[in-house]
């Protein structure tokens, strides 16, 4: 079966600096892939280059087996929904209209119906008519997550979707993404919370200075050796009744 998304040997420059030096990624339908790594490791660049938002100096990016550069905007949007890290919104649109922006392919009545359903799923149905700039950062993040879910794409890519969220909202976000995976979508999510990544992702990919340092099941990808060499932490993943947690201190 073709992978939903494959990035092979991505080499990317930002200005003069080489931010990706041959990183690869692959994700299949039904799985949640967590991408982790220290600040500046190249997580966002990997996603952006793989989506065709940044030029690849070398390497390739395939969406459902097709080179991303060969897709037109409609074809690409049919294959992937993207939630950027940046949550700044330009105008104070009502939440339902923002969520409906996830479905520009539908007539507006249907798009609004999808939007309402997704707002309900992320727990802000009561705020549907509220302006997004009149909301707290956490509420706005949920509305943007609803917008991502409204794309109904077979691949969902979320860049730091839980940054700045309270614990409940973080877990809800990952639960919703897991539910999408269970329903057959491929999900890629970048995270800074290693414990959260270990608990909620099927596979974890660790990026370090533009290269893949390790990947695989959480316990393998986040081994004590990787924690030490990539994150400069002394510690380990510990299995608890609530799932995996990271116990670590700075080296």
């Amino acid at each position, binding site marked *: 079966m073709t992978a939903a998304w494959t990035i092979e040997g991505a080499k990317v420059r930002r200005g003069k600096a080489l931010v990706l030096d041959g990183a690869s990624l692959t994700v299949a339908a039904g799985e949640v892939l967590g991408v982790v790594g220290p600040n500046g490791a190249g997580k966002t660049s990997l996603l952006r280059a793989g989506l065709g938002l940044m030029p690849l100096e070398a390497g390739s990016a395939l969406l459902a087996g097709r080179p991303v550069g060969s897709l037109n*905007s*409609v074809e690409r*949007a049919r294959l992937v929904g*993207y939630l950027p890290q940046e949550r700044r919104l330009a*105008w104070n*649109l009502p939440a339902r209209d923002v969520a409906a*922006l996830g479905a520009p392919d539908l007539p507006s009545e249907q798009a609004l119906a999808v939007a309402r359903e997704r707002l309900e799923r992320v727990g802000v149905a009561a705020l549907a008519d509220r302006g997004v*700039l009149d909301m707290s950062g956490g509420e706005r993040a949920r509305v943007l997550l609803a917008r991502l879910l409204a794309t109904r794409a077979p691949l969902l890519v979320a860049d730091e979707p839980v940054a700045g969220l309270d614990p409940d909202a973080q877990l809800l976000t990952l639960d919703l993404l897991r539910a999408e995976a269970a329903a057959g979508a491929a999900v890629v999510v970048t995270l800074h919370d290693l414990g959260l990544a270990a608990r909620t992702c099927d596979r974890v990919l660790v990026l370090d200075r533009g290269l893949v340092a390790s990947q695989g099941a959480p316990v393998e990808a986040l081994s004590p050796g990787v924690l030490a060499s990539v994150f400069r932490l002394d510690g380990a993943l510990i299995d608890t009744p609530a799932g995996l947690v990271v116990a670590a201190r700075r080296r």
Partner: protein
Amino acid sequence: MSPRRLELILLLVLVVAAAIAVSLGESPLNAAQYHQALTDPASPPGEVLWTIRLPRVLMAALVGAGLGLAGATMQGLLRNPLAEPGVLGVSASAGLGASLAIAGGLAALPGAIELAALVGALLAGGAVVGLAARFREPEVLILFGVALSAFAGALTALVFNLSPSPVAVAEVLAWLMGSVENRDFTDILRALPPMAIGAGLCLYAARGLRMLTLGEEAAQMSGLPMARLRVAAVAGSALLAGASVATTGVIGFVGLAAPHLVRAAVRDDPGRLLRPSALAGAVLLVAADLAARVIPTEQELKLGVVTALFGAPVFALLAWRAARSWRS
């Protein structure tokens, strides 16, 4: 309020404002004369109403609508409430074209100034469209527009500087201040095609402007042909701004203020903002031109002067109210 309802209300206001503007003017008419004007368009009062005032009011409405629409499009595209039709440097370039024509002694040729201004606007607009196709960041367009405005402004000043005739300088200045006086239906017909094309392009870009609320990257991934929509928005605004300046000279503040008057009524939606902004711009300019005509002054007030004089304080008031409600 539904967008349709808002547009209907604005349209009614526009019709009423236009009716008042046609019936009022420098030379007051009595009831009998109004009656004569309505029954016999060829009579002297009829001439005043239908061949002097009506084209003038229509021209004000047309240019006001163009500026309002271009302003709303620019604000949506650049995601900046301070953007206006002149931000791309198109208006300044149109002004430069007109100045060159006047200083070159072409003012006597019918339509020469307008054509020169339109050429200036199209050259500048073409450059900006090329830029918009290459760069998606709004900052690039804003910075380039500032540079282009400054450069065209400097060249216009150079025309003043080098002009041997003070008459030509006065003419250029008067033209730059903007006015819709002494317009006939030919002027309107001449302005209509570029403005209609411009309006069509802006309205086509509406869904792209709405999507840009999410930022450039999310919009680009949304499935909308953003590159094409961005070019349409820039080309449409440039045509509207250029044709406006070419027909009436530089008229400030309408393009900036009109979108702000109706933004709250469309819940900030930059796509749904377009048509109401055009209508609001038309109302504003018809009202401003009426004020320019009926305020008793020795020299008739120039329209661009009136819009700036009244527009700037009103705009400051709007900004003050908006600033108090901004949360982030």
